[in-house]
């Protein structure tokens, strides 16, 4: 067989990439650009002065500063809390290890609104902490926001660092010990340098997630604290100050691009691939006391808000316990302004998530194939690199910008999706896309091309090669990515809050509406609905975790 010329190969690459790129352009680039254009050219011409004006407002400065430092603190907390657990869960052997690993991943996919509600319950005025200390509660303070952000992102650190810790050759440390290095010295001079790429990679992604977090800051930030993301939301919906929103979106986009570039550069060598050797975990020894204790503490910290949420949902009006809040869930119009019962919203959420899942799988699968194929030549490699980065973009672009962009660009010919039931799933699929690609790409990339060549040399045609070499390795990560996308879509709030139609809201939208309304009954229902949503996503994630795909949740 002759090599196709490089030009032909590039053409083939373009053909494969065309579909996903087109989708990305129509449903991501156009809405985001449209949204930015609306802000930047209010009267049909660029008004850079207005942008600079927005950026020089004192409030903008405060918002940017708060976003940066709260994200930095939350990232530090995630790394500090995550590292011992990453060690304990990847290198030590103890009963329940897999279950704990799975449980610690659940917060990552819990709907932001639910986490907001749970922390509100834990840290609020009537929460257990405030009651013990007799204080005012911490809701509306940076502490609550940072706690919420950390709660979400510890899993990313555990996953990413754990995956590389798991395959770290124990003998390198042993060589150092045999040269006279104490355990502490081995950690600082051998283990930590080897883990550095994955730690930095995890930290940069966590910082990204924290800095662009929406639901947590909106529900826990109260009126005083706002991040860039929630500020965009407030400017867009409450103040209708689109130029300011656009200016902030651009600022955010640039910062995110810089961070993504950094993360991609640092990710080299930090990726968990299924082909790597996993070192057998060891029984716990006396020297592991600190990491084991820290992991226990982390479990308590993670369990506390969830426990508070469940307890809150079971409390009824007279101060006793009961299921009254849950009974209210299937009642339509329980005297309040809700258009649909919560159970129906859950149905909508599930249907939407199914659609979003197949869309993001189809798209993410194609992208993963395109970016992991072996490159011949510089140009091809560069093209694949750019594509890889391009499809990571939704990770960092404000979901609010995306959602609002959908509203203003996809509501007129040639593409009018304003009333299409596919609008919400498409937006959610884009949000889930980077996670799908990050789950599939390492697996596809780890298949040695020589395996395919060996199969071909034994007489297997391209389809048979796909069925006998690729499929047996890929099906599990594929199912895992589906579950991951499903869970993410169930909890998606930022874009959905713009796009869901009032008569067909998703569950997170309903929960947010419920906590915004006065009355204990509404709040109780919000808690109960949060528990239902959390239980659903947790069940999906626990099922995914049973597939034991190392790249899930890692970056």
């Amino acid at each position, binding site marked *: 067989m002759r090599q196709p010329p490089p030009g032909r190969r590039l053409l083939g690459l373009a053909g494969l990439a065309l579909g996903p790129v087109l989708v990305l352009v129509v449903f991501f680039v156009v809405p985001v650009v449209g949204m930015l254009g609306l802000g930047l050219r209010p009267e049909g011409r660029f008004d850079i002065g207005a942008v600079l004006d927005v950026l020089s407002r004192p409030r903008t400065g405060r918002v940017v500063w708060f976003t940066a430092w709260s994200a930095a603190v939350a990232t530090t907390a995630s790394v500090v809390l995550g590292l011992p657990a990453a060690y304990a869960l990847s290198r030590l052997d103890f009963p329940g290890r897999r279950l704990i690993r799975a449980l610690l991943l659940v917060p990552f996919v819990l709907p932001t609104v639910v986490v907001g509600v749970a922390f509100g319950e834990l840290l609020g005025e009537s929460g257990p902490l405030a009651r013990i200390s007799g204080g005012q509660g911490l809701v509306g303070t940076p502490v609550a926001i940072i706690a919420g952000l950390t709660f979400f992102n510890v899993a990313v650190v555990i996953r990413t660092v754990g995956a590389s810790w798991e395959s770290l050759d124990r003998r390198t440390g*042993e060589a*150092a*010990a045999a*040269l006279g290095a104490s355990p502490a010295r081995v950690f600082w001079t051998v283990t930590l340098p080897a883990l550095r790429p994955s730690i930095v990679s995890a930290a940069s992604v966590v910082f990204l997630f924290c800095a662009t977090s929406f639901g947590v800051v909106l529900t826990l930030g109260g009126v005083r604290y706002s991040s860039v993301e929630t500020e965009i939301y407030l400017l867009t919906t409450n103040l209708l100050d689109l130029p300011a929103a656009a200016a902030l979106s651009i600022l955010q986009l640039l910062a995110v691009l810089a961070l993504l570039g950094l993360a991609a550069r640092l990710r080299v060598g930090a990726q968990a691939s299924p082909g790597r050797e996993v070192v057998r975990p060891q029984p716990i020894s006396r020297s592991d006391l600190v990491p084991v204790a820290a992991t226990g503490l982390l479990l308590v910290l993670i369990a506390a808000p969830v426990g508070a949420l469940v307890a809150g949902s079971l409390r009824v009006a007279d101060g006793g316990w009961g299921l009254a809040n849950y009974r209210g869930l299937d009642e339509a119009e329980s005297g309040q302004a809700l258009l649909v019962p919560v159970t129906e919203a859950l149905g909508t959420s599930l249907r939407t998530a199914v659609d979003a899942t197949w869309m993001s799988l189809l798209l993410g699968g194609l992208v993963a194939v395109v970016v992991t194929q072996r490159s011949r030549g510089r140009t091809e490699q560069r093209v694949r690199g750019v594509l890889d980065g391009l499809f990571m973009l939704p990770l960092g672009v404000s979901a609010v910008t995306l959602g609002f962009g959908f509203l203003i660009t996809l509501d007129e010919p040639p593409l009018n999706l304003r009333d299409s039931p596919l609008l919400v799933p498409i937006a959610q699929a884009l949000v889930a896309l980077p996670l799908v690609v990050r789950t599939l790409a390492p697996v596809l990339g780890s298949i040695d091309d020589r395996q395919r060549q060996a199969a071909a040399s034994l007489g297997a045609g391209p389809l048979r090669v796909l069925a006998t070499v690729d499929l047996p390795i890929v099906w599990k990560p594929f199912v895992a990515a589906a579950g991951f996308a499903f869970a993410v879509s169930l909890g998606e709030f930022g874009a959905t809050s713009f796009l869901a139609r009032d008569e067909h809201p998703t569950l997170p939208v309903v929960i947010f509406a419920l906590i915004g309304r006065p009355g204990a009954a509404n709040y109780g229902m919000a808690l109960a609905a949060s528990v239902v949503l959390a239980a659903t996503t947790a069940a999906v994630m626990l099922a995914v975790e049973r597939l034991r795909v190392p790249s899930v949740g890692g970056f």
Partner: protein
Amino acid sequence: MLEVRDLTVLYDQAPAVVQASLNLPTGQVLAVLGPSGCGKSTLLRAVAGLEPPASGTLSWDGRDLSGVPTHKRGFALMFQDGQLFNHLTVARNIAYPLRIRRRPRSAQRVAELLALVGLDGFADRLPATLSGGERQRVALARSLAADPRLLLLDEPLSALDAGLRERLAADLRVIVRAAGTTALFVTHDHEEAFAVADRIAVMRAGRIVQHGDLDAVWRAPVDAETALFLGYSRVLEGQAAARVWAAGGSSRRSAHDTPGSPSRTSGTIPPGEVAVRRSALRLEPTGPLTGRVISARVTPLQVRVVVSIDGVGEIDAVAPLDQHPGVGETVRLAADHTRMAVIAAALGPGSL
């Protein structure tokens, strides 16, 4: 002096080392030789303090080592693949143990060690840019920099290709000698063991089956399996053993009669089992044995022949390069006692 007494190490609940006992006097090099999976690496790791013993004792100069962590034993361990720290340059890898010990003038010591292993000018290279042989040399230099009481080497050469392995084995001996270090070294390759060690311990299925000076072990392997592992090509028993041994005796006397050591030269004692090297039988017009050539192949040093001898069966032999017997030809063969060994276990008491 390293003393290992009745050491048992469990790996994954299964015994990997069973009641092993060893002595290694200071200044000597001991090779633990055994097939892969025989537990020799586990033994080495136990000595290094990386595997806890299930029972038995390890001591250095009479002092018990149990409870002494790896980094306080002063035994440097060199791995099969070197385990260089990839984020450090060659010089900083070698300086690693020096920095731990806060040694002054470490740069000078690094330069000395680099010269010792023949890698002058490699100081600023990163491990990833080195060849396999260079990495092992750096790993050796790094281990020596720790100035270890005992150097532990885990198959230090087996990751290398054959030619390089041979050269590096010779270098290894010279370097370890020059440093005056006591070394315990594990290998599955008897050539390597002979090239480097003073003493040898043969290990099989977790047990040390034979242990002693290189020469003593080589001359009297404890059983047939050990003999084959030490590089003997075949082990003969019964009538076949007696015939070949007897032929050795007569040929020896006819060639250059050596008085003394009667048990070796007398062909009258029928030994139970005899291990023979490939070169124990050689084609010789006046030899006492007659055989038919099964195959013959020229190698750079000699012609390798397989012959069939009545009462012995198929057996290896060699011929000088100027002879190339044809297949089916009948040839006469002489035997050489110095290239045979009577298996110790097969001998009755007092027969040696």
